[in-house]
């Protein structure tokens, strides 16, 4: 729609080479009706490039008929494309805009702020790295603003910019701007948005949009465009796990079998070991194939290139599978159950038991809604219990797929952690989802993960007999579990004191302590609780390896997960006590003694 600036007589080849190498930044713009969003985008396009004369003429004609600027050029009309939009003066659907400056190429996903806002926002946000939230300086932070920031955060956008617009209508007031800035940044902090910033602008006059403003000398920050051009995008991340969902298998002749797909995360080299997920079959990358006329084979490739991989052996691999790296924390999860945050996008509500089609990567599989876990109240960020989800609701659900699928949590990998749900009858796209975790009882929770072959357990120079002689104890674990506020932790420390007074050596591990550090990346979903207990049990295992009595106090609500902990630590060394049985400290000490886990301390 606009052209980048090129001056007559400039060296064309040099210019094109620079243009070609420009990095692409995908930007989302969102705001409520009348925040001046379309005007802002019109301003960005108008002031950074050239609008063709025929487009400008059409714009002038449109401004006379539909404009809101008294017949003057209404920049909003650059953006509103559909007839109904010009007639009603509103933006109905996500519109895509393109412009280039000397420093970057931009794609703007312009999202309307009124009806369907959540659905449109989520759509735009799924494609973008940065979000601009328009705020009318007169009305300040509104429910809509909070909703926009929440959706941006949910979809993993790390850069959120509040463009505080219509500063001309509040007399360019610094106090007003600072007030809005404080409130906005505070809300973003609660959402965990890493890079949030507020800028004062006037889209109507152009102040603070492309160039810094002279009428707001109190503002030392950049103009909006400067900020967009300067935002640092993450470079190729070494830590990103390699993922390539298989789109098509190419078999042009008997000697060639290539797996075509787009790398969604990480990189891969010829010779790398990979697994075909969800089956888990292992192979090595033999070729990253490219015919000579397209530049010849590659040694290495990376996201987001579309490639063809050949493997070193005959393996079962077809559309829907993912070719992935593995080992350590880079394993994909596999299972039928997934827990995901959803944005519900159709009129008919989502209810438990409903059957849909679930698209993960290139696999489309039938899935059933097991339950709605909660609905999000966007204003307060509170979770409220819910049985169903209505149009534009945001909430968390558990799904059960008809077949095992390979996936990653969305925060680890977007390409294999995002899902789309499709209505089986109408084929409508019913929901967008971000996978949180898998089912707690499936291998996703790491209980069944194997340590690397090369890992060996070191042997301590102090023997079990020596420890027993000093402490008069066998290593063991006491788990105090039950709902919050039932006195678990208090009982744990009373038990520690009692054992200490008897001359034993005990250590307390409690849920809060775990979550303050080792498990601070986990939430409170079943999978997260499972993982938290697994980590605690692994710490207990290490401590028990050195003769300690470990007292654990955890909510640990899942029977199956507790049984896994028991199996890991050895049933004969475990004593699990539930809150409903009462935490009778002398009684527990007696039980440990009766099982021979503690004895009378022999004086040294």
């Amino acid at each position, binding site marked *: 729609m606009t*052209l*980048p600036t*090129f001056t007559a007589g400039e060296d*064309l080849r040099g210019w094109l080479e620079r*243009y*070609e190498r*420009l990095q*692409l930044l995908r930007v989302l713009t969102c705001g409520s009706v009348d925040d001046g969003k379309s005007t802002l985008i019109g301003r960005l396009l108008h002031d950074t490039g050239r609008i*063709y*004369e*025929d487009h400008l003429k059409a714009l002038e004609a*449109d401004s006379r008929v539909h404009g809101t600027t008294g017949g003057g050029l209404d920049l909003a009309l650059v953006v*509103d*494309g*559909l007839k109904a939009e*010009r007639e009603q003066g509103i933006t*109905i*659907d*996500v*519109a*895509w805009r*393109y412009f*280039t400056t000397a420093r970057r*190429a931009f*794609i703007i996903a312009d999202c309307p702020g009124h009806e369907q806002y959540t*659905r*449109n926002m*989520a*759509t735009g946000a*799924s*494609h973008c790295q940065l979000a601009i939230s328009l705020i009318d300086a007169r009305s300040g932070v509104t429910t809509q603003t909070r909703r926009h920031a929440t959706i941006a955060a949910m979809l993993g956008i790390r850069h959120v910019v509040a463009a505080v617009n219509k500063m001309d209508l509040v007399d360019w007031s610094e106090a007003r701007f600072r007030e809005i800035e404080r409130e906005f940044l505070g809300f973003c902090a609660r959402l965990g948005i890493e890079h949030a910033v507020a800028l004062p602008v006037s889209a109507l006059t152009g102040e603070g949009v492309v160039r810094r403003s002279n009428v707001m000398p109190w503002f030392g920050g950049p103009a909006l465009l400067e900020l967009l051009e300067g935002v640092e*995008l993450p*470079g*190729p*991340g070494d830590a*990103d796990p390699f993922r390539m969902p298989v*789109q*098509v298998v*190419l*078999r*042009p002749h008997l000697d060639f079998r*290539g797996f*075509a*797909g*787009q790398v969604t995360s990480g990189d891969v080299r010829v010779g790398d070991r990979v697994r075909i997920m969800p089956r888990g079959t292992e192979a090595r990358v033999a070729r990253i194939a490219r015919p000579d*006329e*397209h530049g010849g084979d590659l040694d290495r490739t990376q*996201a*987001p*290139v*579309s490639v063809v991989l050949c493997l070193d052996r005959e393996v079962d691999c077809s*559309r829907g599978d993912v070719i992935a790296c593995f080992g350590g924390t880079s394993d994909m999860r596999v299972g039928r159950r997934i827990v995901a945050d959803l944005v519900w996008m159709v009129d008919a509500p989502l209810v438990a038991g409903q059957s849909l089609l679930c*698209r993960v990567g290139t696999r489309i599989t039938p899935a059933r809604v097991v339950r709605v876990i909660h609905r999000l109240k966007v204003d307060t960020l509170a979770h409220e219990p819910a049985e169903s989800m209505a149009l534009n609701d945001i909430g968390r659900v558990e799904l059960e797929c008809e077949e095992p699928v390979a996936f990653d949590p969305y925060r680890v990998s977007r*390409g294999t952690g995002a*899902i789309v749900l*499709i209505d089986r009858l109408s*084929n*409508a*796209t019913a929901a*967008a989802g971000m996978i949180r975790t898998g089912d707690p009882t499936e291998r996703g929770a790491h209980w069944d993960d194997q340590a690397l072959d090369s890992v060996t357990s070191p042997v301590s120079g102090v023997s079990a007999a020596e420890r027993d002689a000093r402490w008069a104890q066998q290593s063991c674990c006491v788990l105090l579990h039950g709902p919050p506020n039932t006195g678990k932790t208090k009982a744990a420390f009373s038990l520690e004191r009692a054992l200490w007074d008897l001359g034993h050596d005990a250590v307390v591990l409690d849920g809060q302590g775990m979550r303050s550090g080792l498990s601070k990346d986990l939430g409170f979903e079943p999978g997260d609780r499972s993982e938290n207990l697994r980590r605690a049990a692994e710490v207990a295992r290490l401590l028990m390896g050195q003769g300690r009595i470990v007292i654990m106090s955890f909510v640990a609500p899942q029977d199956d997960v507790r049984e896994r902990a028991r199996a890991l630590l050895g049933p004969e060394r475990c004593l699990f006590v539930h809150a409903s049985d009462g935490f009778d400290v002398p009684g527990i000490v007696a039980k440990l003694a009766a099982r021979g886990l503690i004895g009378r301390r022999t004086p040294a």
Partner: protein
Amino acid sequence: MAHGLTHLEELEAEAIHILRETAASYERPVLMYSIGKDSTVLLHLALKAFAPGRLPFPVLHIDTTWKFREMIAFRDATAARLGLDLQVHINRDGLAQGISPITHGSKVHTDVMKTVALRQALSAGRFDAAIGGARRDEEKSRAKERIFSFRDANHRWDPKGQRPELWSLYNPRVHPGESMRVFPLSNWTELDVWLYVWKHRLPVVDLYLARERPVVERDGALIMVDDDRLPLKPAERIVRRRVRFRTLGCYPLSGAIESDADTLEKVIEEMLLARTSERQGRLIDHDQSGSMEEKKREGYF
């Protein structure tokens, strides 16, 4: 999205991904080939997407019988050189009725020989997905169209009832009789297309380059006299001018521009300095504001 690719490489990767999704999701996809620069890039990307395999779908050209002769020659040479399964469709009913841009005007001609013809060809071929080279930056109503754009059994587009499109998780599903229009170049700009043609040295129709050609001046536009079907009005005279075309279509409806750009580089340079858009020369867009949206609702690409 962490990567060090250039924006052109990123656009290429995205387009190839879309082309492969289409081949994998439909029984009878078809690639719409209009012979122009966008089609040229699209065809190149399609071949690349499936190499070393063959193109897994046919290539369809809707011939209005009023295309430049050079376009038809280029089309046939390209199909032969690349071994394409080229299918050409002409609306025989329209031809029998003598529909022409000259007697019936651009609106009727485009509707019958292009839009209706396209619907005929898609129905006859039972194609469930038609891949086109349209870009979102071309025109305002295109800016809101999906990459996988649903069409009902009558090939109609409902701009207000479009499916949300998130990440690259396209929803390809259609019922029998319904179809999808797929636009792999959605996120490309006109400059990106030319840059790609230039960088990869893709052959394009010579009409894009400035040559001395016979033209008449009509309603402020320069119309090339490509054959003897163009009746001259009393005051009109055929003159030879150095001209080229920014977009190619039916010759009586394509306005030429006077130019000295006889190489691709000069064409790009001229475009960068141009004052009017590429669609300016297309007579069909100017009938009314929103005319493209209307045509698209009726099944036009």
